[in-house]
C-alpha cells in the first residue's frame, strides 16, 4: 500500500489480505469470492480503515477475518441489524455485510427485509450455496423441495425462497446476482452495488463442494445458460445470442428462441425503472422454469436513504432548536426554587 498522507491511497488486492490463514475447505467457492473482492476493494477508492465487513455465522460469515479492514463476525442472522446501527451512526464508513443463505434467509430473514425496506446504506452480499455449510449439511431455505440432506433424509418439505423475489417484495432499491467464479460479472455487480447509495442486495451463487457440490453447475459451468442483464440493452443470451427474454401477457418474463420472435419484442432491460414489477418477473426466471439464469443488476433505483434521512433530521433539529443545551433541558417545564 502506498498512502500519500492526504488520505488518498493507492491500494492493491494484497493490502486487503489479513494475516489470518484462510480456513475454508479446499475447493470452496468462497475462495473465489474472497479473491474477487480483494481485487475489487481498491476500486472503492477508500482507505482500509473506512471499510467494515460485518457478518453473521456460517462458512461465508468467516469472511471478515480474511480482510485487512475493520470487521465483526457477529451472531447468526443478526449482521444486517448490527451493520444498520454502525452505518446509521457512522455515515463516513463503507459497510458491507457478508451472509449465507441460512444466515440471511432463515434466522436472519427479518433483519434482511427490514434493512432493505429502510434502504440503509449497506452492501449485502449473500453467498448462496443452498445448504448449511458450517453445521455440516442441513438443507437451507433456498434448497429445492425434496432435498435429501442430513436433517431431511426423506427429502425436505418446504418450498424454497427465491432470494431476489423476496428482496424485491421487501422494497429493495438494488438487487443483483453474480457467480462466485465469474470474476468479471461479480466485479461489475460489486461496483454497481458500491456506487448505489442505499442498501444493495447481491446474491452470489457459491459452490459448496463438500455438502452441495455442483448445485449451480448449470450456470456456473454452462455459460450458455447465463443471461447477463445489461441496462438499456435487449435481453439476449446463449452461446450465439440465440435466445432472448420477452414479457408474456400474464405479466411473466420468459425465455424464447430469439429467432422465433420479432427482435423488437425482446425485453429491453431497464434496471432503473421505479416500478419493481418487471424486475420481479425477471427474478422468476430460473433454471427450473426456463433453463437459464439472469445475472447482473436486476434493479437499481434511487430512493431516500435511511442514514441520510436520519442525519438530515439531526441537522434540522439542531437548526431549529440549536445544539442541545443540557442545563436548559434539565430546567425545562415547571421549576421552583427553594432558598
Amino acid at each position, binding site marked *: 500500500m502506498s498512502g500519500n498522507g492526504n488520505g488518498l491511497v493507492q491500494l492493491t488486492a494484497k493490502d486487503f489480505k*489479513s494475516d*489470518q490463514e484462510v480456513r475454508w475447505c479446499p475447493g470452496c467457492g468462497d475462495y473465489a469470492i474472497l479473491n474477487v473482492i480483494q481485487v475489487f476493494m481498491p476500486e472503492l477508492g477508500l*482507505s*482500509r*480503515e*473506512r*471499510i*467494515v465487513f*460485518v457478518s453473521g*455465522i456460517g462458512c461465508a460469515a468467516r469472511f*471478515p*477475518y480474511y*480482510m*485487512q*479492514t*475493520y*470487521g*465483526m*463476525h*457477529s*451472531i447468526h442472522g*443478526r449482521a444486517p*441489524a*448490527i*451493520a*444498520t*446501527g*454502525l*452505518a*446509521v*451512526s*457512522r455515515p*463516513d*464508513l463503507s459497510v458491507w455485510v457478508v451472509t449465507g443463505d441460512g444466515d440471511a434467509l432463515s434466522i436472519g430473514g*427479518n*433483519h434482511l427485509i*427490514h434493512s432493505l425496506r429502510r434502504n440503509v446504506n449497506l452492501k449485502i452480499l449473500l453467498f448462496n450455496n443452498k445448504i448449511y455449510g458450517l453445521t455440516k449439511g442441513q438443507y437451507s431455505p433456498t434448497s429445492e423441495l425434496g432435498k435429501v440432506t442430513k436433517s431431511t433424509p426423506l427429502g425436505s418439505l418446504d418450498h424454497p425462497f427465491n432470494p431476489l423475489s423476496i428482496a424485491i417484495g421487501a422494497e429493495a432499491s438494488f438487487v443483483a446476482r453474480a457467480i462466485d467464479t465469474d470474476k468479471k460479472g461479480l466485479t461489475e455487480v460489486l461496483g454497481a452495488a458500491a456506487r448505489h447509495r442505499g442498501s444493495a442486495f447481491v446474491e452470489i451463487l457459491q459452490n459448496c463442494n463438500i455438502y452441495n457440490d455442483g448445485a449451480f453447475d448449470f450456470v456456473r459451468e454452462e455459460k450458455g445458460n447465463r443471461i447477463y442483464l445489461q441496462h438499456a440493452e435487449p435481453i439476449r443470451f446463449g452461446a450465439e445470442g440465440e435466445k432472448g427474454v420477452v414479457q408474456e401477457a400474464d405479466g411473466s418474463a420468459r425465455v424464447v428462441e430469439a429467432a422465433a420472435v420479432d427482435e423488437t419484442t425482446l425485453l429491453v432491460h431497464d434496471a432503473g425503472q421505479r416500478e419493481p414489477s418487471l424486475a420481479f418477473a425477471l427474478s422468476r426466471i430460473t433454471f427450473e422454469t426456463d433453463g437459464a439464469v439472469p445475472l447482473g443488476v436486476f434493479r437499481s433505483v434511487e430512493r431516500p436513504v435511511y442514514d441520510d434521512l*436520519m442525519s438530515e*433530521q*439531526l441537522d*434540522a*433539529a*439542531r437548526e*431549529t*432548536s*440549536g*445544539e*442541545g443545551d*443540557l*442545563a436548559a*433541558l*434539565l*430546567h425545562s*417545564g*415547571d*421549576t*421552583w*426554587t*427553594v*432558598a
Partner: protein
Amino acid sequence: MIRFAGDSGDGMQLTGDRFTSETAVFGNDLATLPDFPAEIRAPAGSLPGVSGFQVHFADHDILTPGDQPNVLVAMNPAALKVNIGDLAKGGTLIVNTDAFNDRNLQKAGYGSNPLEDGSLADFHVHEVALSSMTIEALKGIDLITSREAERSKNFFALGLMSWLYQRPVEGTLAFVEKKFAKRPEIAEANAKAFKAGWNYGETSEDFAVSYEIAPAKLEPGTYRQISGNTALTYGLIAASKLSGLPLFLGAYPITPASEVLEQLAYLKHFGVRTFQAEDEIAASGAALGAAFGGALGVTTSAGPGIVLKSETVGLAVTLELPLIVVDIQRAGPSTGMPTKPEQADLLMVMFGRNSESPVPVVAASTPAGCFHAAIEAVRIAIKYRTPVFLLSDAYLANGSEPWLIPEVGALADISTEFATEPNDGETFLPYRRDAETLARPWAIPGTPGLEHRIGGLEKEDETGNVSYDPENHDLMVRLRAAKVAGIAADIPELEVDDPDGAETLVLGWGSTYGAIGAAARRVRATGRNVATAHLNHLNPFPRNTGEVVRAYDKVLIPEINLGQLRMLVRAEFLVDAVGYNKVRGRPFRAAELEDAITALVDS
C-alpha cells in the same frame, strides 16, 4: 394523600399531573403513583377502564406515594368500586353524582347504588354533580358543545381539590392556555371549569374547611418534578454529553419503556439517533453496531423484550464493547401485567445468557435517581468496555417526585479515549488489557492502522485471534469475570443508616427504597432499632457488602419477587437473610413493611 380515579377517558392522569405540579411549586415534598389500567381502552364506565393517580404530599420529606389515600375523587361508579377499598376509614370521598346512573352502576357491577345503600357510611362522602355543574359553568362559551363541556369536568374537580388544599393556581391556568393554544375555546372552557371548581369549594357549605399543608423544608436550589422515565432520558443525554459520545438508541416499543424512546426522539438536537427497530433483537444489535463505531449504544425495553436481547448481550460480553441495556421491569412471567411494576428480572439480567457471561448491573431506587443511575451505568460501560444492565421498573418509570436539578458543571466527566496507535510495537493487539481496569482498547473504524476483526468465537488473549486452546479459554473466562468483579473497587461503599446500633438490617434494592425508608421510620418511632441499607449496584456488590450483612444478627430483604437478591446475598455471604416477598404488581405499602420489620426485630 389524594387519589383521583375515573374512566380512562376522564383525564385523570392529566388532573393528577397538574395537581402534582401545583403541589411541587408550592413547595411540598411529594411522591406520585399513576395507575393506568391495561393497554387498550376498555369500554367507558367498565372496571378495567378505571385509571387512577395518587399524590402524596407533606411538609416533610416523603418517601412513598402512600399506602391509603385520605381523599378519593371518584368520577364514576367503576372508579369508586375499584378504589374504595384503599380509602382510609374516615377518609374523604368526593363522587360525581351525575355518573351514578343505572347504566354505569350496572357496568361497575353494583347491585344497588352505593350512594344510597349505606355502604359508604365509614367515609365523609361529598356528592358533587361534577358533570352538570361543569356544563352549567361553561354555558357562556361559544363553539363548545355540551359534550365537550362535560369533558372539562376533570378541571372542575381539580379546581375543587386545589381549593381544598389551597394550591397556587397560576401554573395550571398558564398550562391550560399553552396546552390548548390551538383550540382557545377549549382552553377557556378548562380554565373556567377549573375556577368554577375552586369557587364551588369556597362557596359550597359541603366543604367546611380547607387544609393548609405548609411547604416542606428542602435543600436550597432549583427544583422540578420528574418521573423516572424522564430522569432516565435526561440521564442518558447527560451521559452522552459527559462522555462526549453521540447517543444511539435502538429500541422496540414496549410498556413501560416506550416513553424513553419517545422522549429521546424529541431530542435530536442533542445529536441523538433513535432507531425504532423491527424487534428487540435488532434494537440491541444496532446499538452494539453503533458502539463498535464509537457511539454510546443504548437499548431500552421491559422484561419480555430483554429476554430477546440476551444473545446480543452475550456477544457484547465477548466483544468487550460498551452497551447500555435498560430494563424497565414489569410484572411477569411472559406478558404478565404490562403496566404493573415488579422487581423480578434481577436473576435474568445476572444469568440469562449461555455460559459464563458476567455483566454489571446498576439499579435505580427512586424516580429522580434514574438520572444518576443512567450516568453511572454509562460510566461503567465505557470505562470497562462492557455491557451494563440498568434496572428501573414501572413504578419508578411513571412515579414522580421533586428533584433538585443538578449543576451541569458539577457532573463528573466520564469520557474515554479511543485507541489511535498500535500498542505492541508496530502491531495492534485488540485484546491487550489495561492493567488496572482490565479493559481492552476501543479502536473504532476510521482509525488508520488499527484495522482488526472481532467476533463471538473465543479469542486468544491479547491478539484477539480465534483460539480453541483450552488454557486460553479458561484464562479468558476468568479475565472477563475478573474485569467485572474488579468494578467493586470503583463504586461507592454500601451506606448503612443505623442511628441506634440495631441488630436487624433491612437490605433493599430498586424501587422499594421509599417504602423501606418509610417503614423504618415508623418502626423507629415505636422505639425499636433497625438499620437500613440500599444497593444501587447489584453486580458487583459494593466491596463492603459482606461486612455489612455479616454485622447484623438478622437481615431482612424485602423484594417484589420471590427472593432474588436474597439468593445472591445468601450464596455470596452465607448469611441467613430472610425475605419479605409479595408479588402483586404494585409497590409495597410502608405499613406492611413496618409489620414485617417489627416482627423480625421483636423475634
